[in-house]
């Protein structure tokens, strides 16, 4: 990769932007975590790079917006992918444009529709993202102008990233937990907009193809949620 510059230092990876085969490319390097046992560190890193690569490929082939995968280098703990130009991390977008603002109903609906549809698609393909937060979703910058006239294409504006915790052969429980993780992360990160998750969930159900399975996920989700509420917390 040429002309690479560090753009973000995440929790477990450094992300570089550069040129690879004449394309703008993002390189994500999962650095060694010294706090954990070296064998455990090596195994987790390999698992996650593999998971990320597989999930990206699978999602892409299902027509879900993700960066295209370019190259995997397990030896150097790196993954190379398409750099998404002109995008904003969804968390920042919400903080800047929604939290504490008036007249945001249509924006919220747009986000709910986009996320709900994308996640329904992922789950229909049995892809569990594993870390659904607004930090792991990019929103294309030009989407705001097109948002009012083109409601149906909302989901194409949301690019899913960070598939390191993704899993494939998923059970109903996995899908329910994926939603539960998202719900809690939305509540915590965006407590000023408590209605966000219900918007997402509404469109999720609307766009989940297999209605019977969707019912089952819903039932499981309620169980998972109740477990969290009812957990005895002794000590």
């Amino acid at each position: 990769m040429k002309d690479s510059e560090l753009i973000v230092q995440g929790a477990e990876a450094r992300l570089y932007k550069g040129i690879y085969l004449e394309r703008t490319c993002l390189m994500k390097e999962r650095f060694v975590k010294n706090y954990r046992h070296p064998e455990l560190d090596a195994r987790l890193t390999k698992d996650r790079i593999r998971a990320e690569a597989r999930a990206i490929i699978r999602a892409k082939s299902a027509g879900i917006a993700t960066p295209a995968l370019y190259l995997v280098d397990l030896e150097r703990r790196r993954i190379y992918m398409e750099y998404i130009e002109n995008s904003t991390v969804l968390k920042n977008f919400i903080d800047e444009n929604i939290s504490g603002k008036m007249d945001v109903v249509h924006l919220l609906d747009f986000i709910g529709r986009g996320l709900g549809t994308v996640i329904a698609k992922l789950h229909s393909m049995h892809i569990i993202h594993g870390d659904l937060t607004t930090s792991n979703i990019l929103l294309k910058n030009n989407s705001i102008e097109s948002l009012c006239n083109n409601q149906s294409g909302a989901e194409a504006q949301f690019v899913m990233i960070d598939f390191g915790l993704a899993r494939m052969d998923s059970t109903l429980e996995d899908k329910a937990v994926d939603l539960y993780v998202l719900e809690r992360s939305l509540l915590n990160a965006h407590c000023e907009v408590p209605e966000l998750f219900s918007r997402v969930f509404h469109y999720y159900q609307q766009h989940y193809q297999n209605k019977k399975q969707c019912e089952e996920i819903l039932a499981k989700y309620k169980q998972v949620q109740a477990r969290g509420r009812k957990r005895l917390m002794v000590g």
Partner: protein
Amino acid sequence: MVIAIGFEGSANKLGVGIIRDQHILSNVRHTYVTPPGEGFLPRETAQHHRKYVLEVLQEALDDAKISLKDVDVICYTKGPGMGAPLTVTALVARTVAQLYNKPIVAVNHCIGHIEMGRLIAGTENPTVLYVSGGNTQIIAYSQQRYRIFGETIDIAVGNCLDRFARLLKLSNNPSPGYNIEQGEKLVLLPYVVKGMDVSFSGILSHMEEHLSKWLDTKAFTIEDLCFSLQETVFAMLIEVTERAMAHVGSNEVLIVGGVGCNERLQQMMNIMCEERNATLYATDERFCIDNGVMIAVAGLLQYKSKGGTPWTQTTCVQRYRTDDVYVSWRK
């Protein structure tokens, strides 16, 4: 100057602590220790608390060199915890409040750990890892609540360590997790992290399933298993803590709860913090293990901001989430 007394008895530790504003005057604890291989049950634990509560109370008063007349506010643990033991300490607290005609404050146990940790360690707005026998939560404050960013989706980390220790019949004194020694060979165990949530029950069942085979074939020693369990579960905890810090942009961590005394956990957290230029705050076992002072500290904050708890609400609840509490005393 306000003097507060705190009564804690939500699990197997019975504690009474006294503070004058932010100064600790006394902190007395009596632990119900069960035989190897056994956990503590509500009925026996409540019996233990009943037997020792007056003794512990007297000792706390003597250490503080005050009498109950000098106390300004009575604080007790409302929950979460085991019903029967909770009731014992609540009953004593309510009786004292009535006898001496003092205001009473009902305190959430988890909030007690957090406020005590903030006070003792001197950190203003940390990301909190709360790890104990019954709790595993990653907490950050925002908008009048301690919000739970991550938590266990099944059993608590302390419970996982204790149950494993019981499986091996390690001693429960002072706590089963404490007797987990160091081995050197790492066994690969299920490592389950979902977003900022963790899951431990799979590890336990995996251990149960393979234990006799591992030991019989001498593939691994008991020490190796303890070592591997510890390395695995702690790595999970550090990982989700770091993810929460990255998510909220925080550079302070506070570890509270009984498992927080573990030196390996603190060491791992410290390495993680150093690598991201953050600071770790931890307390020692006088304070990270359940105690009365933590209840007094949180109770006093609550009292100073909005007064005592109405008498009819001075009950106990077994389930009481950290994020249920409206935190009126912080900005």
